[in-house]
């Protein structure tokens, strides 16, 4: 770092030195404050302290997670840009790239569900169009408390309306997601929002500033006193007093976001932008510091020039405001007028608020005074990294088919499962999201993955979000593997080649060794699966301290998977297509019941080890299914996950309005009927095959050493099980579809 132009020596910095007490109030530790004193060689003033606290906060610095995130594989044949930028970028051929990212907005959504969720969607959209991509699909992963908890209905309706309110207005289809109910989210819901965009592969925009004396430009909405402590709140544990503190939550303005998307993309068609970054958590602070630090330049901001919504804002407030719908750019000198004309056209604020410098410092000017001068290396590179102590999670024993007594007849069990909070249809949710705007949606929610056509081509992008938190709690290592494997499987099932993943790591307090253990082992599992399945992690987000009154949420690593379908004629769906086709189960069934929904719902047991994930088997079966789809040997495909084979068949039957008759040969399999139907062994898919092709498929499966079970045939209007039980599709559909609308209308 150059020291020849140290502004601290030339400038007088106004403002009283801050104290350790103030540092503690900002969420910094005493050691961290001591380190700041050492790095600065003086005590920072309050504005500088605010900047430090924002940059060294868990949310921006990843201080507890950084060590472990490095374990995730991020390279791959398709990867153009991995973690570290606003979003990940992968090549999808034809000169195009997919840009995608998942964001958490958990705490704000609990406090103000509509606005919290809405601004979460806004944030993930900005991460994507910042890089030059037009957003083409949204995905949302939601975890709520128990359905009968007093707050749940209010939170569900607010969050879903907020996600819809924002995404529908900006005109990006929401095509996939997941909803989990579990008492461990009673006091701390999770709202994870993912956006996928498409950009020219050779015209991706990055955030590293470059050059000296280049204009720093602010565009978008004006700055107000929004969520001044937002970034600190996102990393602070909840307690009952939080509800009294009533921190400000930001209000989203999707109308302005839509204009911002159009204006930014229009400017990106010109050769004007050197670097661009959205203002997310810690607003102007993190955007300016990250751009300058990445580019190895200094940056000077004249805060008076920041467009302001309120009067009398201080430098501290201007630097830490989290007002939404704002971006920061470094422009090529001379292109300001051209850029301004575009933002004027869209009625958005545009202001040159500073320039890049050769001082390697962040220098802040307000009302003609220097109100801050901090070496950038102290803010970015010198941020603390912790190797937090962790405990290995206890190993639980597996629960196998023979350990489980049949709780009720199979048809009744299937109906109960499919009407349960875990598996009931989420239609009530996704019908509040515009799924078909942009005119390229090939699969709306309800299948294994959402699919949009790449505009103007014959290609498709498939997206899914997955995590099974109860598995992660019981066995973080297998839980981590399983989350990645399920996302991969869901993409395979629609005929896509899985390309890469983004993720949101939602965990409790990392200062607790058991929670840190969950984190470490989940990450290890994710890393193994991502390696084995060649499914690199290109972006993501970490949300820690998700707990209430000392009780943490279930460990929830949400995986957002992206896959590519080369020819949309080869897209697959899960609906049964015709009568009298053979139903095959691909993959091995051992009868793992640990942590299964069958045990939880029908026997009231949430115990045992989660099903193990054999990654070699996962890859083998998945690649086989992929080939069957390409060779047009199968007519419907659905992966087997929560609830097991019976639920998979039930979903396929409902989607196609064609029933099934299941007549498996249990004797040869040496399995109880319930184990075949309801155990949650991994790496399995149900497929249908026209009868004349079945021998071919069986022979090929034998060649590839993929286990196959003949389950029966499609047909009629019911699901008939082993000749003894029968469930009409009409009854099944009613149970499956009614639960959520009834919950929400108060009729339960």
């Amino acid at each position, binding site marked *: 770092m150059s020291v020849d132009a140290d502004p601290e020596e030339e400038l007088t910095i106004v403002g009283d030195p801050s104290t350790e007490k103030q540092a503690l109030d900002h969420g910094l530790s005493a050691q961290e404050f001591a380190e700041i004193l050492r790095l600065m060689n003086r005590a920072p003033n309050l504005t500088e302290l605010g900047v430090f606290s924002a940059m060294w906060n868990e949310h921006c610095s990843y201080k507890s997670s950084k060590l472990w995130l490095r374990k995730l594989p991020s390279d791959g044949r398709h990867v153009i840009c991995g973690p570290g930028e606003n979003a990940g970028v992968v090549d999808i051929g034809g000169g195009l790239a997919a840009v995608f990212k998942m964001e958490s907005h958990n705490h704000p959504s609990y406090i103000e569900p509509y606005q919290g969720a809405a601004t979460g969607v806004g944030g993930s959209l900005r991460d994507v169009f910042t890089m030059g991509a037009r957003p083409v699909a949204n995905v949302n992963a939601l975890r709520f408390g128990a359905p009968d908890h007093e707050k749940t209905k209010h939170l569900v309706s607010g969050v879903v*309306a907020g996600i819809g309110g924002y995404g*529908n207005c900006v005109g990006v289809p929401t095509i996939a997601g997941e909803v989990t109910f579990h008492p461990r989210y009673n006091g701390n819901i999770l709202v994870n929002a993912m956006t996928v965009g498409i950009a020219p592969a050779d015209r991706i925009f990055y955030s590293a500033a470059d050059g000296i004396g280049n204009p720093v430009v602010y565009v978008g909405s004006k700055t107000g006193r929004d969520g001044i402590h937002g970034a600190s709140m996102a990393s602070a544990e909840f307690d009952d007093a939080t509800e009294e503190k009533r921190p400000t939550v930001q209000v989203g303005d999707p109308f302005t976001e839509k204009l911002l998307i159009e204006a930014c993309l229009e400017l990106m068609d010109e050769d004007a932008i050197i670097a661009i970054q959205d203002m997310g958590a810690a607003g102007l602070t993190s955007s300016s510091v990250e751009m300058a630090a990445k580019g190895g330049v200094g940056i000077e901001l004249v805060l008076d020039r920041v467009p302001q919504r309120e009067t009398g804002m201080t430098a501290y407030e201007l630097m830490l405001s989290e007002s939404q719908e704002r971006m920061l750019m470094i422009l090529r000198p001379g292109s300001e007028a051209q850029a301004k004309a575009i933002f004027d056209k869209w009625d958005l604020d545009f202001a040159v608020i500073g320039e890049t410098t050769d001082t390697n410092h962040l220098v802040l000017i307000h009302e003609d005074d220097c109100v801050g001068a901090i070496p950038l290396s102290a803010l970015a590179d010198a941020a603390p990294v912790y190797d937090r102590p962790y405990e290995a999670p206890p190993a639980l024993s597996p629960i196998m088919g023979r350990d489980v007594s049949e709780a009720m007849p199979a048809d009744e069990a299937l109906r109960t499962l499919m009407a349960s909070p875990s598996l009931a249809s989420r239609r009530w949710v996704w019908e*509040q999201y515009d799924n*078909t705007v942009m*005119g390229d949606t*090939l699969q709306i929610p309800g299948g294994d993955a959402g699919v949009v056509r790449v505009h103007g081509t014959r290609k498709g992008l498939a997206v899914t979000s997955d995590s099974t938190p109860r598995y992660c709690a019981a066995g973080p290592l297998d839980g981590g593997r399983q989350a990645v494997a399920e996302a991969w499987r869901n993409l395979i099932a629609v005929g896509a080649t899985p390309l890469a993943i983004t993720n949101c790591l939602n965990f409790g307090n990392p200062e607790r060794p058991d929670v840190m253990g969950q984190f470490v082992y989940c990450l290890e599992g994710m890393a193994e699966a991502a390696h084995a399945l060649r499914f690199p992690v290109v972006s993501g987000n970490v949300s820690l301290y998700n707990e209430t009154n000392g009780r943490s949420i279930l460990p929830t690593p949400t995986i957002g998977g992206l896959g590519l379908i080369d020819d949309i004629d080869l897209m697959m769906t899960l609906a049964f297509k015709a009568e009298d086709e053979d139903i095959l189960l691909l993959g091995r069934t051992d009868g793992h019941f640990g942590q299964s929904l069958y045990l939880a719902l029908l026997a009231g047991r949430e115990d045992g080890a989660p099903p193990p994930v054999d990654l070699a088997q996962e890859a083998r079966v998945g690649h086989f299914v992929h080939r069957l789809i390409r060779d047009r040997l199968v007519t419907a495909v659905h992966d087997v996950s929560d609830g097991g084979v019976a639920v998979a068949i039930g979903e396929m039957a409902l989607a196609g309005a064609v029933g099934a008759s299941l007549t498996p040969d249990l004797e040869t399999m040496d399995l109880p009927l319930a184990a075949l139907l309801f155990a949650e062994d991994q790496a399995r898919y149900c497929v249908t095959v026209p009868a004349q092709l079945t021998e071919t498929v069986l022979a090929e499966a034998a060649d590839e050493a993929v286990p196959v079970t003949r389950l029966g045939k499609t047909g009629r209007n019911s699901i008939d099980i082993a000749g003894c039980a029968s469930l009409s599709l009409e009854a099944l559909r009613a149970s499956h579809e009614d639960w959520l609308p009834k919950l929400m209308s108060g009729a339960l």
Partner: protein
Amino acid sequence: MKAGVIVFPASNCDRDAAVTLAHVTGQSVTMVWHKETALPQLDLVVIPGGFSYGDYLRPGAMAARSPIMRAVVEAAERGVRVLGICNGFQILTEIGLLPGVLMRNAGLTFVSRTVGLTVGTERSPFTRRYARGERLHVPIAHHEGNYLADSETLDRLEEEDRIAFRYTDNPNGSARDIAGILGADRNVLGMMPHPERAADAALGSTDGWRLFAGLVEELQ
């Protein structure tokens, strides 16, 4: 046929409409910015879906007062075909080219799904390629699609055969299951369903295609 699409701030189905129109007409489509005060020579003006001005205040309220809409009204009075889809329908009622209002859906939530429609009349340039009573499948995606008008207006719409489309399974509480209505001169159509999202076999339904194809044919 020369078609144009009006672009308001936060229109978001403008591109979808243009893509479909370009397909059907084989000609380029003119995008008209809301700040313009005059329209180019056009045979069809489409007011697209979306959230013009964020749907703030009332959906369509601010767009209806924007400069270009005066030109659209004049064009409609001259007989130019005007098609308002979703937010476009809301704008047309706000500006008074079509009677009634679109209220918040009866269920209060946004509704996105493919719905069944029946064709109410074939007597219009928009519906001439359909048979009266024919069933169609077309997506809807709106929060305020609950059509409301006083009973005299509704009676008049029925008497004058101006109900272009009705829902088979009313998704939003609309009076008399109305999904789309014609202006008195039959050259203005407002409808909540999105025919431009049902004009491509890859997307599931092509039932919307004939609406556009009929317009093209009529002008030949």
